[in-house]
């Protein structure tokens, strides 16, 4: 995002020292910025020009960012562009009280690999409308980087009896995920999930691996201590494997956590997880932190601690010898 500003306006450092005019924050983007509430870029620019200084201000003045919060990073980008150094990032997502009674949507999250670590691995998402209404069901898919920044939006629908397929291969998404890893956040525009739970594939020249999405909590605003830990189980085997713990924070408070490896009777060790704000993800290479689990010689589990946050979690394994990528939801 900053690169765009630099290219367009030249002296970035100078620009960041003073508030921008409306004309200057008009970076040429048109259409919807908030796809849930159908709020346009121009509406947000106008609100910023009228004095909105925070995402909370924009929520009140435009209704943007009051449902799935998928446009939060984009609103922040626009505010930062306008306010420069005066912009203050708020790590916790909030909702104006007047929206608190509206049941939030429950986004569904899936990891996306598209050339991750140079590997020939791509991703597809499939939505099957077998038991839904006899009319097309709309869904929206936001492609996010690990830092929660939305880089693309698809609006699709799937007809009754049909399957909707979203191609997230390297060929399809180009350079949208420079690190080859991200998240797809899918929002179904229907109250009942029915048969429409999305599954996804990791596709390589030698294998296809599949599992289903993980849904965000019914109330992302309310943090309740979980009754158990998310775990990554480690069985015994004879082949070298890489192992990645992939998770997205689906609650509005930032998540501060660690991963704890505990083997069957042979002690434990821990590794840090980056602090994750809402919609931020981490893909932690467990085999680099806990070499024992890569060999298959020790069984046990890796748990996410403390057991406080609702995450959309996945287990990803990679057998380099055969280019075998395996994925499983937690």
């Amino acid at each position, binding site marked *: 995002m900053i690169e765009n500003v630099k290219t367009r306006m030249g002296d970035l450092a100078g620009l960041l020292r003073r508030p921008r005019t409306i004309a200057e924050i008009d970076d040429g983007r048109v259409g919807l910025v908030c796809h849930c509430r159908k709020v346009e870029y121009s509406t947000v620019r106008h609100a910023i020009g009228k004095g909105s200084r925070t995402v909370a201000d924009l929520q009140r003045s435009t209704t943007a960012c009051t449902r799935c919060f998928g446009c939060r990073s984009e609103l922040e980008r626009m505010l930062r562009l306008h306010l420069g150094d005066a912009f203050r990032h708020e790590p916790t997502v909030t909702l104006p009280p007047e929206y608190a009674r509206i049941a939030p949507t429950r986004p569904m999250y899936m990891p996306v690999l598209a050339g991750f670590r140079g590997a020939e691995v791509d991703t597809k998402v499939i939505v099957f409308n077998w038991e839904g209404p006899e009319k097309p069901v709309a869904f929206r898919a936001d492609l996010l980087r690990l830092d929660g920044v939305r880089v693309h939006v698809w609006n699709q629908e799937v007809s009754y009896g049909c399957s909707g397929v979203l191609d997230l291969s390297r060929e399809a998404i180009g350079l949208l995920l420079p690190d080859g890893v991200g998240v797809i956040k899918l929002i179904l525009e229907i109250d009942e999930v029915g048969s429409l739970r999305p599954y996804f594939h990791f596709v390589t020249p030698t294998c296809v691996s599949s599992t289903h999405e993980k849904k965000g909590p019914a109330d992302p605003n309310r943090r309740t201590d979980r009754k158990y830990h998310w775990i990554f189980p480690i069985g015994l085997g004879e082949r070298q494997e890489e192992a990645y713990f992939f998770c997205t924070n689906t609650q509005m408070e930032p998540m501060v956590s660690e991963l704890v490896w505990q083997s069957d009777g042979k002690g434990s060790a821990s590794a840090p997880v980056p602090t994750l704000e809402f919609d931020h993800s981490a893909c932690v290479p467990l085999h680099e932190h806990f070499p024992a689990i890569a060999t298959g010689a020790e069984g046990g589990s890796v*748990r996410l601690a403390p057991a406080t946050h609702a995450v959309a979690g996945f287990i990803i394994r990679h057998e380099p010898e055969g280019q*075998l990528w*395996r994925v499983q939801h937690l």
Partner: protein
Amino acid sequence: MPSFGWWAHPRDYALTVVLSTHHATVDPEAEFHVTLRGYSGGSDPVWQHEVGYLDHGAEKAVLLDELDLPEPPDAGGVLEVHTIRLDSEPRNVIGFVGMWIDARGRDGGGYLIPTIPIRGASKVVKRDDLQVIPGIMSSREIETELVVLNVVENPVEVRLVASSAGGLVAEGDWFTIDPWAAWHGKLSNELPRVRQLLAQDGGIGSLAVYSSHRVLPYFGFRRAGQPLVSMDHSAPIFA
């Protein structure tokens, strides 16, 4: 409530049952007792292994290869992970303590799947006679493998209906799975026209699994003769 998974044939997979007390609770006073059982066509287990008592904090990895077990049928059998919490009474809502199976393929690959109950999950489903598998594939290069577990006393009738991405349908015949047994097959064997059906939409579609009572279906893919790399469960029809 007991939970179940596929007892895959040891010729193909090395199964580790990962028992994690951290996956069950955060209560430091919790105590558990775990028993593993295998079934192959009858309600009496053909083997039973008492793992024993686990205090909170214990993690246990049980490699079935290290137990002296009889072999299941070619299609595999049903693996029961029966975990009982000893320090508290069951709650009003029937609960279960699900654990994990980490199956490593003898030739690489494998699958990792939580054990699940036939009843007791907290999510509300609309019907017991239908589940779906979005994203099946069948072509000369890629094949969908299916496993269906019947974990009740009665035989179950099952029918597979494949749908191309564009909505064309191929229906299979009803077939029977014995009580406490596993069925394991290739999609194209059950639905011989499925490759032609899916070819019209890029070789991809979805599957509906109809059954006379609740079953536990799983699916995975094999590409170009390479090992299978996952075996996830189907999706119920959620309310």
